[in-house]
């Protein structure tokens, strides 16, 4: 148990643990915020009370996840100072500024308008409420933008250079628009949207399968479908572009993702390994199954590569990413889920076109509904797997090619970090279980279709009667 005395290892585990848990919640709320904008918009446009009830029902799940997201996210920011002080000092000029932008532009916007979205239905005119909903969604997605900008910059640092251990920025816009940024933001934006769509779709499918409010939830499923038709294939394409970027900017990570030990020279056929048993010590794969020319098609859409694919042996062992099996299989899990989503999309659209999703017939689509329920947690798994590839694959660097993780950590007594790490492990597991428990309670209870729809006086567009505005979650 050597790592128990290794502050760097413990700090890494702590950051990984908090990040892996924290991500579960914003990944849902960021996408779900957009969904809330859509249903509220449909309500304002059609005045169909169903959409109002959708807005109120999903907001319950939204706020539960948002609250845990905030609670689990605050520690992330502070860890940069507590556990990664040398890193924070070195990159504060840019990385710190970006975290400041995230807080001021994005998070504050979301937090500042959330109260109105949740409790303001009877207190502000519908237009103001709708603007608040839009601003919450905008803030959440702006968070994705800034966080991914910061992380992309760590992957492909640009806009300056390291001078005497401190990153001096010469061009801030070059740093923001670093080579990874646009694609990474897109990939994560689509990931949050996809995760939320399949969670909402899965829950709606569960109600339909159980014959509870089938017609009501068929509406939700169709909204999800209308968006996911575009999102699922687009995500595969953007993911492909991200892979290409890794190939060009982080060849060691690509080699780890593919468990490729030997360099494949340009002009030779490149096979794609489908399943393998990477062996760190012998520097080879103990066993593997390859698809002939597959890698060539994946990277350049032709069988023969025009550039070499560097193998792991090109780097000294201390300069390569470790935990090869984790990176290799995480990548495959993510890709598999991406394709599964696209397939499920195709199947569902086919049934829709055939008229099988009408209120009368949707009850009969039992296998389709089961597939949607099965899909509900997969988005989370894909996102986690993707981040493992992204951040474990970046090792041994914190700032890629410039600052090593080992040099980025604060010197702290390992006992301190061990105690806080154990604290996080216990508390975050508790949060996770509570989220599942209370989330499933909200779902089992179902929507409250008796909440009176606010009636507005057209002349003043203010609520005509002031009934007590209960918390939407009041049990």
């Amino acid at each position, binding site marked *: 148990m050597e790592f128990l005395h290794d502050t760097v290892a413990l700090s890494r585990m702590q950051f990984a643990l908090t990040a892996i848990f924290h991500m579960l919640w914003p990944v849902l709320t960021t996408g779900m915020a957009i969904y809330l904008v859509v249903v509220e918009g449909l309500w304002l446009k059609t005045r169909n009370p169903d959409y109002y009830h959708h807005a109120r029902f999903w907001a319950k799940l939204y706020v*539960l996840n*948002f*609250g*845990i997201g*905030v*609670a*689990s996210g*605050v520690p992330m*920011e*502070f860890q*940069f*100072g*507590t556990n990664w*002080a*040398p*890193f*924070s*000092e*070195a*990159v*504060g*000029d840019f990385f*710190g*500024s970006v*975290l*400041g*932008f995230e*807080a*001021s*532009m994005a*998070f*504050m916007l979301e*937090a*500042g*308008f959330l*109260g*109105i979205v*949740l*409790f*303001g239905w009877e*207190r*502000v005119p519908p237009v103001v409420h709708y603007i608040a909903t839009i601003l919450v969604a905008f803030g959440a997605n702006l968070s994705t933008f800034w966080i991914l900008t910061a992380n992309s910059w760590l992957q492909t640092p640009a806009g300056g250079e390291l001078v005497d251990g401190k990153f*001096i*920025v010469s061009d*801030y816009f070059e740093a923001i628009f670093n080579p990874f940024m646009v694609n990474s933001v897109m990939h994560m934006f689509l990931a949050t949207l996809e995760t939320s769509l399949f969670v909402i779709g899965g829950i709606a499918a569960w109600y339909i399968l159980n014959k509870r409010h089938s017609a009501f939830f068929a509406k939700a499923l169709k909204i999800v479908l209308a968006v996911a038709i575009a999102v699922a294939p687009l995500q595969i394409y953007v993911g492909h572009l991200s892979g290409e970027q890794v190939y060009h900017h982080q060849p060691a990570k690509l080699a780890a993702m593919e468990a490729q030990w030997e360099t494949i020279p340009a002009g030779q056929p490149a096979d794609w390994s489908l399943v393998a048993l990477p062996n760190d010590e012998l520097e080879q794969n103990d066993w593997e199954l390859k698809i002939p020319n597959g890698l060539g098609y994946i990277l350049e859409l032709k069988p023969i590569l025009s550039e070499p694919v560097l193998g792991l042996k090109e780097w000294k062992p201390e300069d390569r990413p470790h935990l090869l099996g984790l990176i290799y299989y995480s990548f495959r899990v993510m890709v598999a889920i991406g394709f599964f989503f696209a397939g499920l999309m195709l199947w569902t659209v086919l049934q829709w076109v055939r008229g099988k999703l009408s209120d009368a017939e949707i009850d009969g689509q039992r296998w389709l509904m089961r597939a949607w329920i099965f899909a509900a947690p997969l988005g989370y798994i894909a996102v986690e797997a993707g981040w493992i590839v992204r951040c474990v694959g970046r090792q041994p660097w914190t700032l890629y090619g410039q600052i090593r993780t080992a040099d980025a950590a*604060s010197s*702290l007594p390992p006992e*301190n970090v061990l105690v806080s790490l154990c604290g996080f492990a216990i*508390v975050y597991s508790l*949060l996770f279980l*509570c989220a599942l428990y*209370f989330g499933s*309670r*909200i779902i089992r209870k179902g929507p409250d279709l008796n909440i009176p729809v606010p009636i507005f006086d057209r002349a003043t567009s203010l609520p005509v009667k002031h009934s*007590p*505005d*209960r*918390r939407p*979650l*009041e049990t």
Partner: protein
Amino acid sequence: MESLQYFLPQVWFAILALFLFLYVMLDGFDLGVGILSITSSDEERRGILMTSLSNVWDANETWLVLMGGALFGAFPLAYSTILNALYIPIFMMIFGFIFRAVAFEFREHSNRKFFWNYAFGVGSFLAALGQGFALGGVLAGIKVDENGHFIGSTLDWLNLPSLLVALTLIQGYVLIGSTYLIMKTEGDLQKTHYRTAKLAAATTLLGAILITIATPIFYESARSRLFDVPQVYFFGALPLVGVLLVGLLWRSLSRQEERGPFIWTIGIFLLTFLGLAAIVFPYIIPMQITIYEGSASASSLVFMLVFIGFLIPIMLAYNIYQYVVFRGKVTGDGYG
């Protein structure tokens, strides 16, 4: 360019002070209400207390996240050194935050509210305690080498004066929490908080007096700064104005005013804050590293100022709007 290197760190010092003050004032009443909830006699009262915060708590807490992000960007050296030194109090605060934040959501859905009630109350207390120790630790001085890197030990923040600061801060939070509840509640509940406000005012004053006496005795580095002319007039006037404000607060509590107590309490917080800022300025790691030594590059400060500076009035505006929308008393059922 030369003058920019003086001007910009000062601007950022002022912005950070503003964020911190807004945080201490807003999350101060938030945490204070949380601590008070431990003493609530029944479930209905606790429900009202939590409802009075439900729409504002996370916007209030965001000022701290904002302060953290801005400190990281504007004074990376201070951010890394201070947080590194205060590892334990920071995590005390963080775990407190986690418990109180999730208590809002989980309590709503839970049949057995007991656990989440205490998660809320104890979490608030723990967060306030961590902040108090952090403040005390910073004022006591952080051991750094010539590069400003932390070289002390992990328990440096734990000493008598920092315990005094922590307890006083908790009392201050209870005071502002009580006066907030006076505005937001009616009847018996309001009466209770006239009493808790008086009690907290007395203990806060006692703590403040002890800190005023202790500061020049324990904090060697602060001593010379306090007694130099002309600062000595300013630092001499502070406690006098402070006592005057406490007197005004006391009077408004005795007259059972609704808004007065909260406003006077903000006055007391503001005064304390000005005093602290005056002791600390121009240091960012007190008495060790100045804002000029610890700041990010001038270009970075300009860049941040452009992005964040113009947002400050906008953030203030929509936060105020939120308070305006939800003005008025809280009733048992939520907002009536």
